[in-house]
């Protein structure tokens, strides 16, 4: 009979594997949100009203529904339709990716609106086309404004991935539940998991901050980013 401490020690590798899955979930949803969020953010600012109406509905659903309700909606709801089968991990990435896209669209909209009008006027006066202006003048500046909020989005997303276990993904939380049940050391195991998430959250934020400092241009972009988690 193994002591519970030994059992926790021997459970660490499986926790690490679960952590790998959690990080995979964060990385893929964050990038899915980026790919979809940038065009959505541009659409929020520039698209005609007829496009913004369906956008509003998308926004209400993905920002207004609780994450767990969205997960159940997609995994149990869409998954129970005939001829549709959906892997738990796909459901989670789909939900968190679309959710993050909705939030990131707001971030990019705000960032685009923060840039001085004179910037695009100056570019046009120099003979840049509109596309060239957006790509070479506006987006590089907007990206710098968006970075602080993006690190905030990372930390929210990481914490939301902890819900993946509710639809059966074997992530950090589900490994922890199993280990807690087996070793009966619920408190220690969950405190350990809390510590892991703590390190991942603050480590990731520090990374984002380093990037922010690396790409900062004195005099342009956010001068002193307001820190929030």
């Amino acid at each position: 009979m193994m002591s519970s401490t030994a059992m926790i020690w021997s459970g660490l590798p499986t926790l690490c594997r679960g952590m790998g899955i959690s990080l995979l979930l964060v990385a893929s949803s964050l990038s899915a949100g980026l790919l979809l969020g940038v065009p959505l953010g541009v659409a929020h600012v520039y698209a005609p009203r007829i496009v913004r109406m369906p956008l509003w509905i998308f926004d209400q659903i993905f920002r207004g529904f609780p994450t767990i309700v969205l997960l159940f909606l997609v995994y149990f709801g869409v998954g129970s339709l005939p001829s549709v089968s959906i892997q738990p991990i796909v459901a989670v990435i789909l939900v968190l990716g679309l959710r993050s896209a909705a939030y990131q669209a707001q971030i990019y909209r705000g960032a685009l609106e923060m840039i001085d009008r004179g910037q695009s006027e100056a570019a046009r006066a120099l003979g840049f086309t509109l596309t060239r202006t957006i790509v070479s003048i506006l987006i590089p500046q907007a990206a710098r404004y968006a970075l602080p909020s993006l690190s905030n989005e990372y930390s929210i997303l990481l914490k939301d991935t902890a819900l993946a276990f509710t639809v059966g993904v074997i992530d950090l939380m589900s490994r922890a539940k199993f280990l807690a049940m087996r070793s009966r050391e619920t408190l220690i195991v969950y405190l350990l998991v809390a510590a892991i998430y703590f390190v991942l959250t603050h480590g990731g934020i520090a990374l984002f901050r380093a990037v922010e400092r690396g790409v900062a241009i004195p005099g342009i972009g956010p001068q002193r980013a307001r820190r929030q988690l």
Partner: protein
Amino acid sequence: MSLVSLFLDSAPQLGHGLLVTLRLILVAAPLGLVLGLLCGLSCVYGNRLLRTLAFAYQLSFRGVPLIVLLFILYYGLPHIGIRLTPFAAATLGFALCSGAYHSEYVRGAILSVPDGQMDAGRSIGMSTRQTVFHIILPQVFRKALPGCGNEIVYLIKYSSLAYLVTLVDLTGQARLIANASFRFFETFFIVGLIYVALVSLATSLLQLLERRLRLPT
């Protein structure tokens, strides 16, 4: 069976769940606000010990997912002999978590009040405490309101996690209804809409409050 008849059939059950969810929010939100206010004040005006404690609380509770916190409170604490009811564990977890976020907004708001306000209060003979309560805090409430309001909106949505510590709230009822009727998509969609309605209601109330409190400039 259409969406409407499903809604009508499950209305009593959804109503029960909604009541539980509302009770959770109405208990946890004020608790969280008080906690956030105390912690924010300690961050700025506290002595070294209080400041360290407040920062440690902020940092740790914002770095850990709410669900992990709920699991510690509900499944972990019985290990050292503390047994909480699902409702107590959920409200405590919500309050602790949102308090940590509130405190950051409160701290930011306090720091954004110009130093001259404190100097002016002191120079007309008020004590530091009096100045904080009568001069600084009324301004802080107004400045922190948008952020704190946002946090309350988050709390409404994350109250759905109470279901994971066995509390049958709105989300819990949705699971029960869906499992019994096999109408998963419709049930979760309806419940999602109820959350959207709650969020919209809270947002408009907060906007109303913001407008009422706004000072003429």
